[in-house]
């Protein structure tokens, strides 16, 4: 075997001086840089994958327009003149970010299967920086996807306003962050993309159906009421619905029937506490995810 650099190998630039770089000791600044680059990678990948942008919109749109229009005929009597599409719209804003955030979390399993995880794991940075960057990336990607659905507000008779757009975006960001953290936490334990997707389907779909995204949460049968209060997504759908309904100028009767608010043993949970529940759950799961990734060798 002859050792020679082939023509396409480019002549080694023996003439030029070697550019030497230096890797600094770990610091807060280097961790922030690492978080930022992991976050940026999520965005680059999302932009490169246009098909994913389209496919993850299909399901929310089906629920909103097909289910919404179809069931309208059955339910018009009890919605006090409110279009069913308008009613389920806040729920749809929530699930659209859920699906996308899940895909972002799935990429951590993917990265491990295809080796890229190792490149990040051997860098002189904390594992927590990788996890935080990943969750922020998932949150950003999912809430930008949510903006597409927000743009459809006119189609379901919801007027635009600055507070609506900012409020919905902020809520979506928070929800997406928490869901990504949940996904990353699960991803730490599951080594194969197929099983991860299976587990996620198993968790996400029931969470969505039980949350009250498609029905008001009053007068439910006892078992469903209990499940509903235990479902974390309930606490994202309720403030989202309050936010949207505040812009509609509904009658008292319609408001009471369609957005009764969540109660714990008869006590109505304030919106701020609902939002805090999502935040606290997200942070807890982020903590567990960081712990899981740091514990591995």
């Amino acid at each position, binding site marked *: 075997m002859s050792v020679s650099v082939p023509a396409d*190998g480019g002549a*080694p*630039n023996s003439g030029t001086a070697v550019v030497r770089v230096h890797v600094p000791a770990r610091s807060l600044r280097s961790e922030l840089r690492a978080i930022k*680059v992991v976050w940026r990678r999520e965005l680059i990948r999302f932009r490169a994958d246009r098909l994913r942008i389209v496919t993850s919109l299909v399901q929310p749109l089906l629920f909103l327009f097909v289910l919404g229009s179809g069931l309208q005929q059955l339910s018009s009597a009890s919605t006090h003149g409110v279009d069913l599409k308008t009613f389920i719209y806040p729920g749809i804003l929530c699930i659209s970010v859920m699906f996308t955030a899940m895909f972002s979390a799935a990429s951590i399993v993917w990265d491990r299967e295809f*080796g890229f995880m190792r490149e990040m794991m051997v860098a*002189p*940075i904390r594992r927590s920086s990788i996890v935080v960057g990943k969750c922020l990336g998932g949150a950003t990607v999912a809430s930008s996807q949510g903006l597409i659905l927000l743009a459809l507000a006119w189609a379901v008779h919801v007027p635009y306003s600055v507070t609506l757009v900012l409020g919905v975006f902020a809520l979506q960001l928070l929800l997406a962050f928490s869901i990504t953290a949940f996904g990353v936490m699960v991803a730490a334990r599951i080594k194969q993309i197929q099983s991860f997707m299976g587990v996620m389907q198993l968790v996400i779909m029931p969470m969505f159906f039980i949350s009250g995204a498609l029905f008001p949460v009053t007068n439910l049968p006892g078992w469903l009421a209990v499940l509903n209060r235990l479902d974390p997504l309930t606490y994202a759908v309720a403030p989202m619905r309050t936010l949207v309904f505040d812009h509609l100028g509904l009658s008292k009767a319609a408001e009471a029937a369609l957005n009764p608010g969540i109660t714990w043993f008869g006590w109505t949970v304030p919106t701020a506490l609902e939002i805090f529940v999502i935040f606290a759950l997200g942070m807890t799961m982020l903590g567990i995810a960081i712990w899981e990734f740091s514990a591995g060798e």
Partner: protein
Amino acid sequence: MPAAISVNSLRKSFGDFEAVRGVSFEVKTGEVFGFLGPNGAGKTTTINMLCTLSKPSGGSAEVAGFDVATARDDVRRHIGLVFQDQTLDGYLTAAQNLELHAELYGVERRLVEPRMRQVMEMVGLWERRDSQVMTFSGGMRRRLEIARGLMHSPRVLFLDEPTIGLDPQTRASIWGYIRELQRQEEITIFMTTHYMDEAEFCGRIAIMDHGEIVVLDTPTALKEGVGADRVRITTADDEAAIRELAERFDLEAGISEEAVSFYVPEGEAFVPRLFAELGVPIRSVNLSRPTLDDVFMSHTGSTIRDAEEDGRKNNNRVAAQMLSGARR
């Protein structure tokens, strides 16, 4: 000059299985050091410990002056890694992969571009920097991984089977880069391989088998150390030939790669005697000066290919166990 790597009775066990059974060696700064052995000999396990990817079960090791167990981050800042399996992001372009690496390692921003150009020109991929990595061939990916491993000017570059599965031309060019690196950047290179012909390019090699270093020296010294020529014969009755060799010539012969083979000093003088005195008809004779294969054979009792065969059977068994475990 201090040693780039110094290893002291390093061990690693997985449950009952001892993958590395106490290895000790030193690698000098600027040296190209090769780890040679069949698959499953413990090379990758050793490299993983040196790269801080797995914790030693016992013993100690220092890389670039830092302890792999207690100063993991310092070790990581000073080493570059090229893994056996590829670890690039196929969705990103070549340049994006390298930028990402530079960011993760905190390389000074103004130096990222010139350094990237330097390492990419070295492996001949500068022109392709804006192509997505998923469009690259296996050889291009490996070259890009080497470039990436060098992005942060590591003091020690670890290459785990850098040429496995590559065509001879790419293998040759990768060796070209390794030589160039050694000359330009005074970098220490620690590599594993199971290609005997490649081990010849290393300054020193350690032969590893069953988790232990069986011998460590320069390729030349190792070959001289065999001190005998290898004779391989095919006969009408190999079993009888082995018996005859033992009885008449007091030689220990074995069957490897479908031929009876044994070592004798001064092989040329021995061959005529062999024809005259061996009672079994000989079909062919092959006489060769010692190669690294013979070094391996003389220290481990089998050729590297035979050892691989055994190893593969073992691996299959392990894989089968893992599969059945996963199903449960």
